[in-house]
């Protein structure tokens, strides 16, 4: 019975969402009771031919009445907005200690990859009580990563990274659904999120087949795709150095300043002519078609690892 009428509140966000939802349900129920109550009681009391008093309208039924309920409605709605918006703003960015998981969506499958390189399909294992940041992209159409028990949903776009995060609070297995219509087998694009104890998760992770982690895969691509020919510290070509780049603000030749985030790095590989770093010539060729989305995720992880090493020095 419980499973039919209640959805588990399995993340920190779920509690917040359900709080706002409960308030909205109460406001709606009261409003509906008021409107239906008035409709029904007027309909009965003032049915044609009833003995109820008609005649001159009381003074109170006038313009002030109208202004009054307009203002009351407005302030109620403004309060609801403020409450919902502050919950939203509070949950915008993942905590710094979040585990990072990469998600690649395609028709009709979820591929997930942990920071140490372990890969899963239509599954995701995560530890309880630890924030998890999902960095997601799609290989074809728009999908949407939806975990009802966590109250999170985020569209997954081709050609761009989107992010969301959650912190699971309950152990168990929860459904993962695609919520953006993506073609024939949209409704079969489902998976499972398994929330484990921290130590179980560590054990599970170490038992996974040894894959290189993303940064190491990226390092190999950096050489095999020829990036290092210009961007390695030892290179003689005049190209921006990548050490410490990630997260820094970059001055562009047209005067703009951008933050070197995942999206910027992706664009720089695929459309290098778009954002030229100040002081450099636009000589880099586009790697569109040469790198797939997984390659870009790996290269981005590699560039980020350069930044981290730099930061530790």
């Amino acid at each position, binding site marked *: 019975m419980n499973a039919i009428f209640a959805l588990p509140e399995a993340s920190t966000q779920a509690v917040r969402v359900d709080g706002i939802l409960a308030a909205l349900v109460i406001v709606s129920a009261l*409003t509906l009771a008021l409107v239906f109550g008035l409709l029904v009681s*007027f309909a009965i009391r003032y049915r044609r031919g009833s003995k109820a008093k008609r005649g001159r309208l009381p003074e109170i039924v006038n313009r002030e009445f109208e202004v009054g309920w*307009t203002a009351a409605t407005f302030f109620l709605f403004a309060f609801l907005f403020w409450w919902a918006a502050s919950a939203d703003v509070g949950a915008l960015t993942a905590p710094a200690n979040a585990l990072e998981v990469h998600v690649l969506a395609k028709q009709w499958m979820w591929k997930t990859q942990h920071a140490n390189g372990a890969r899963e399909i239509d599954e995701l294992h995560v530890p309880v009580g630890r924030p998890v940041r999902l960095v997601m992209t799609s290989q074809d159409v728009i999908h949407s990563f939806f975990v009802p028990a966590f109250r999170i949903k985020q569209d997954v776009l081709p050609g761009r990274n989107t992010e969301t995060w959650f912190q699971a609070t309950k152990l168990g297995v929860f459904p993962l659904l695609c*919520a953006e*219509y993506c*073609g024939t087998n949209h409704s079969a694009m489902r998976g499972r999120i398994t929330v484990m104890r921290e130590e179980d998760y560590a054990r599970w992770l170490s038992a996974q087949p040894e894959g290189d982690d993303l940064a190491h895969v990226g390092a190999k691509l950096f050489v095999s795709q020829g990036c290092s020919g210009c961007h390695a510290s030892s290179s003689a070509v005049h190209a921006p150095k990548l050490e410490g780049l990630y997260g820094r603000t970059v001055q562009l030749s047209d005067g703009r300043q951008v933050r070197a985030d995942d999206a910027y790095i992706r664009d720089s590989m695929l459309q290098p002519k778009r954002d030229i770093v100040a002081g450099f010539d636009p000589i880099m060729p586009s790697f569109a078609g040469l790198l797939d989305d997984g390659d870009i995720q790996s290269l981005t992880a590699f560039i980020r690892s350069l930044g981290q090493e730099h930061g530790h020095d």
Partner: protein
Amino acid sequence: MTDAALAGELPFPPRPDYLRAGSTLLSWLATTDHKRIAILYALTITVFFFMGGAAITAVRVELFVPNGWFLTSDTYNRLFSFHGIIMVWFFLVPSIPNTFGNFLLPLMIGAPDVAFPRLNLFSWYLTLVGGIFAVYTLVAGGVDTGWTFYTPFSTMFSNTHVLTAAAAVFVVGFASIATGVNFIATTHMLRAPGMTWFRLPMFVWSIYATSIVMVLSTPVLAISLMLVIAERWLGLPIFDPARGGDPILFQHLFWFYSHPAVYIMVLPAMGVVSEIIPCFARRRLFGYDFMVYAIIAIAGIGFFVWGHHMFVSGQSPYASLIFSFLSFVIAVPSAIKVFNWTASLYRGQISFNSPMIYALGFVGLFTTGGLSGLFLASIPVDVHVTDTYFVVAHFHYIMVGGSVSAFFGALHFWWPKITGKMYPESWAQFAAITMYFGFNMTFLPQFVAGYLGMPRRYHTYPAEFQVYNVMSSAGAAVLAAAYLLPLVYLMWSLFHGARASNNPWGATGLEWTTTSPPPPHNFDLQPLVDRAPYQYHAEGESAGSDAPEVQNARSLR
């Protein structure tokens, strides 16, 4: 003796009403009479309504079980796409404006026709051409993009007939624009002497506001579909991210039209209800001027809330905050309207004829749908329930519970004027009540299923949602019966119904001062207007207790 004879004028020679003014097929297909064009529209959208209805019947039957039993996923996807495209563009958008708006706007403002009668006919032919594209799409194998045509699925990945479907909507959009231009010009130029802006019935205000929304927003729909066609057919890089495009751009363009389109569908419904409630409550409409301002506010703010469809799409979170705030703001004028309709019943003399049952049903369902809109305006809640059955339930409450109820209310209210016949009232009341309960049975469970996480557009679904889908499908059967009933007894009334008098409901409004059905040019004498609408009783008083004929005679001299 008639008033004219008493005044010493000669009686008018007998003249046929608009229905009998010509009986050849050409007299219909080449007519420029707004009333005949309204009938052409009514027939056309009735056909589309039952086509869209048939598609969704198959969908609801399929959803009885979690893993489907007689459709493939591809067929399922094509059916719900067809349902959406037909119902939105070939039924809901033209429903009230092009039938009742066409029929009533000139009558209500005391004009002989709309401003551009031939443009009016042309817009019907455009609807027909668009309809042919839509039906061709279906016959050729269908389209599976949903009514939203999201890129890059529609431009690069779908293997179905996206081009003809987009062409269908593109063409029918121009019918909307033509109608909108026509109605705006008519309202500005052709009002009878004395019909000042604040003497216009609410229905005219609502059609006027709707027309402005149509004219301003529909071109953006045309643009977005044009870009889909350009990318899919000509291969121009627009939305494809691999070539520097942005799939989210399409969503912005699409919702810039499609959110105002919700108001294209619901504002006329509000106008209808604002006519029916005062008539059957024998009351002035409470807060007429606030009702006018509310309609204008809804039409205006409606252009700035489209981003609430995109909270999870990856748009800027700061943009989302602004769209969220504006979405709450636009709920205020809607709430005002609900309060005013309710207050109009206070100290009335309420009778429950079928149009009134539909109108009261509208208020109930619109309120429910509107309140569920607050959930969707709250970003954290929207993130959870968007793209689930919660959204499906929400917009069906507004567009079907609201607009379609009002459409049937209008049909029953003005049927005597349009056809000159009365329908069997008990059957009509029965259908109205059945429709209300059938609707709630169908869509209330979907709120719960959506909150529990059932995504929309799912052919197969996790088994725990079956109970809600069975409830919904059972309700849909009741609803379907309620939609078929009027078809039967209204047809019957055409042949066997009693003759309708000029003003069977004792309503105010110029359309009731002419004969039922009206003559080809609406009025034998140019009407003069010297009062505000809805004068069912003296100002500051409440409903009188005398018979409607007496009250009406008083209000219209």
